[in-house]
C-alpha cells in the first residue's frame, strides 16, 4: 500500500513540485512509494533517535555536564532522517551546526551500533560533544565541526555555505576516479545569501556535478527572518538562476523529504547535475541555547506556536497509522512530540533509543580530555 501524504496542502506553499516546473521535472512520489513497511518504521525510530539526542543534550547542559553552545535540531529531524535514509554508503555528506544527529544517522539504516558503517558511531559523536580525545577530531574544534575522510563526511567551519565548494571538489575527484558518489550538503536558508553559496552551486551546475544542496528553511537566520534574507517567494527559486532543479519539500514530513531528496540524488547520480532541495520547517528554539530567551522575544509567540504545530514525529506517526503499519495502541506508546527538554522523559522514547545514546554518553564520559600539548600539534603535515 503506497504512502499517502498527510500534509495539509494549505499549510505550506507549493510542495510536491519544483519551484519552477519549467526548469526540469516534477517529483513523482515514486521514491516515497517504494519504501517498505520496515523502512517506514525504521525512519520513525530514527526520528525518535534524533529527537532524544537533542532533548538529552539539553538536559545534560542544564545539569552542568556540558560546555559549549547547543544548536538544537528540534522540529527539524525529518530533514536529516529523510535525506540520509536513501543514501549509499559511498555517498558523502556535509552537515552544519544544526545537523548534529546527521553524523550518527549516516549509513545507520537498521545498523546503528555497527562500527564499520560509513557514519560516525554514537561513541565518537558523544566524545565530540563532551570534548574528549575519542572525538574524531580529538576535540580540537567544537560541536558539529567534525567529520571523517574515511566515513565520507566533510568537516565544516563556522562560515556558512563554506562546505559547498569543498563538496563540489570532492565529487569532481570522485568522478575522475570513476566513482558515482553523490554529495549531500546541508545549509540554512540564511546561508543562501553568502557569495560562496552562489559561486559553488554555479560551479557545480556548469560541470553537472552530483551536489545536492539541502536548504533547511527554518524561517530564521539567527535573529533575521527569511524575508530579510531572500527576496524570492521560495528559497528554492534560487535554483532558476543556476539552471538546475529546485525542489520544495515539507520539512515536517520525513517521507516527503525522502522523496524529494532521492529525486535530486538520483538525478545527480545519473550525471544530470546538482539540485537545490528546500525543506520548509521552523526553528523550535533560539539560534543556539544562548539565544533561547531572546528568541522568544524577537519572534511572535503565535509564529512559534504555529511553526511547531506539525511535529515531525506526530506527522510520521499519523502516516504510519493511515497506512496500517502501526496500531492505535502502538501509536500511543511513545509520545515525544511537542515536548521540550524539560517536559520530555526517557519513557517518551523507545528503550532502544535511550540505550543507544546512553552507550555513547557512558563511553564519552570515560574518555579523557586530550593532553594540553596537542594544542600545538598538527599545524602542518610533517615532511617526508
Amino acid at each position, binding site marked *: 500500500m503506497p504512502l499517502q501524504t498527510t500534509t495539509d496542502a494549505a499549510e505550506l506553499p507549493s510542495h510536491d513540485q519544483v519551484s519552477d516546473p519549467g526548469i526540469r521535472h516534477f517529483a513523482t512520489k515514486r521514491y516515497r512509494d517504494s519504501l517498505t513497511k520496515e523502512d517506514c518504521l525504521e525512519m520513525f525510530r530514527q526520528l525518535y533517535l534524533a529527537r532524544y539526542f537533542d532533548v538529552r543534550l539539553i538536559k545534560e547542559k542544564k545539569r552542568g555536564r556540558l560546555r559549549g553552545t547547543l544548536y538544537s535540531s528540534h522540529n527539524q529531524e525529518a530533514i536529516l532522517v529523510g535525506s540520509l535514509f536513501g543514501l549509499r554508503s559511498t555517498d558523502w555528506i556535509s552537515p552544519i551546526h544544526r545537523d548534529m544527529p546527521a553524523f550518527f544517522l549516516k549509513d545507520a539504516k537498521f545498523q546503528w551500533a555497527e562500527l564499520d558503517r560509513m557514519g560516525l558511531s554514537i561513541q565518537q559523536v558523544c566524545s565530540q560533544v563532551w570534548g574528549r580525545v575519542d572525538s574524531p577530531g580529538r576535540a580540537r574544534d567544537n560541536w558539529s565541526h567534525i567529520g571523517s575522510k574515511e566515513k565520507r563526511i566533510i568537516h565544516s567551519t563556522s562560515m556558512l555555505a563554506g562546505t559547498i565548494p569543498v563538496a563540489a571538489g570532492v565529487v569532481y575527484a570522485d568522478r575522475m576516479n570513476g566513482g558515482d558518489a553523490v554529495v549531500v550538503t546541508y545549509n540554512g536558508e540564511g546561508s543562501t545569501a553568502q557569495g560562496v553559496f552562489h*559561486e559553488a552551486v554555479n560551479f557545480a551546475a556548469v560541470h553537472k556535478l552530483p551536489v545536492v544542496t539541502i536548504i533547511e528553511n527554518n524561517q530564521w537566520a539567527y535573529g533575521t527572518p527569511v524575508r530579510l534574507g531572500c527576496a524570492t517567494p521560495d528559497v528554492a527559486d534560487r535554483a532558476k538562476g543556476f539552471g538546475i532543479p529546485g525542489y520544495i519539500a515539507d520539512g515536517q514530513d520525513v517521507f516527503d523529504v525522502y522523496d524529494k531528496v532521492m529525486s535530486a540524488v538520483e538525478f545527480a547520480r545519473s550525471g544530470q547535475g546538482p539540485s537545490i532541495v528546500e525543506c520548509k520547517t521552523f526553528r523550535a528554539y533560539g539560534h543556539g541555547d544562548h539565544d533561547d530567551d531572546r528568541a522568544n522575544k524577537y519572534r511572535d509567540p503565535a509564529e512559534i506556536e504555529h511553526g511547531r504545530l506539525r511535529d515531525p514525529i506526530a506527522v510520521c506517526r499519523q502516516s504510519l497509522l493511515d497506512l496500517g503499519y502501526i496500531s492505535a495502541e502502538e501509536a500511543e506508546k511513545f509520545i515525544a512530540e511537542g515536548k521540550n527538554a524539560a517536559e520530555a522523559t526517557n519513557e517518551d522514547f523507545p528503550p532502544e533509543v535511550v540505550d543507544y545514546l546512553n552507550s555513547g554518553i557512558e563511553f564519552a564520559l570515560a574518555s579523557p580530555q586530550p593532553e594540553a600539548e596537542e594544542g600545538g600539534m598538527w599545524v602542518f603535515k610533517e615532511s617526508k
Partner: protein
Amino acid sequence: MAAIASAPVQTKKNYLTALKEAISEEMAGNGDMVCLGEDIGQLGGAFGVTEGLQDSFGTQRVIDMPIAEAAIIGASVGLALNGKTVMAEMQFIDFITCGFDQIVNMMATYHYRTAGEVNLPVVVRGPAGAYGGGALYHSQMNEAWFCNSPGLRVVCPSTPYDAKGLLKAALRDGNPCIFFEIKELYRRSEIAEILPEDDYIVPLGKAAVRREGTDVTLVSYGQNVYHCLQAATELEKLGVSAEVIDIRSLVPLDEETIFASLAKTNRIIVVNEAPMTCGFAGEIVSRVTTKAFDLLDAPPVRITRLDTPVPWVKPLELFVLPSVERIVQSALQTVRY
C-alpha cells in the same frame, strides 16, 4: 664532429618557463594532479604560465573556472580531500582576497582541526608584486596575511631555478601553500638561466646567500633581492661589503642562515615591498632582536613600501616602494652607527 653537432644546445630559461616546466612535469609525473583557475585552459592563463597545459592533459585535469575565487579554493580543498594534488591559479595574487575565507578558515586549518587525518596538497599560486604600473589591484604583495594564518606554507622565488624547484617542492609537500610569483620577473631576460635537465627541488625553508659580504646583511625576497644586489654593487664602490640573503620561503623561515650572516656582519637591513606595519620585514627584525640580540651592533632596519596602497603612475609608485638608493643610504647609516 657529428657528435658535437647533435649535442643538445642548452638554452637559458626565464622565470615563467621555469614555472611552466614545473607544472607540466608534475602533471606528467602525478596522474592525480589537477590544475584549476580562471582562463588557464585554452588561453593558457593571463600570463601564459599554463600555456599548452590543457592540450597535454585534457579539460578534466586542467579546469577553466568561473570568476569565483572562493569556489576555486573551496573546490581545490575538496579535490585534495578526496586524494588529488591541486595547483590553483589566482589570475593576480590581489584577487586572492575573494577566496580569503576558504584559504584561512577552510584550507589552512584542515590538518589541525582533523588532528592530522586530512592533509591538503594544494598550491595556490599567482602573479604578485609592484614596479610595473599595475596600480592598486594588480601590484600587491599580501603575503603577511597568509604568514599570519597558521597552516600555510608561504613561498616567493626570485630566480628561474628557484621558481621551478620551489614550485615542485611545494606541490610535493602535502601542505597548502601560497606561492607568490613575481610577475616583473616572468620574462626578465637578464635573470634567465640554464636549468638542470634532471628532476630537482629546492627545499622549502632554506634561504640562499646571493652575495657574500662582511659589513652588513641585506635580507629580502622576490624582486627586492635584485634591488639589494644592485645596492651591494653600489656599496662596494663606497667601500662597504654587503651580504645579500634571499629567504625564498617565508613559512617556514630559515633563521639559521640569517643569524649566521649576522654573526659576520652584526648589522641587518630587511627589504620588502609590502607595507611596513605588521609586514614580514617586521617579523624578521623581531626574530633577530629576540633571538640574536647579542649579535647586533646597530639597530635593525626595515625598508618597505610606505603604509599606502600601490599607486598607478610611475612617480607615485616609485615614491612609495623600496629603491636601490634607499637601501644604499640606509646601509651607509647602519655601518656608521
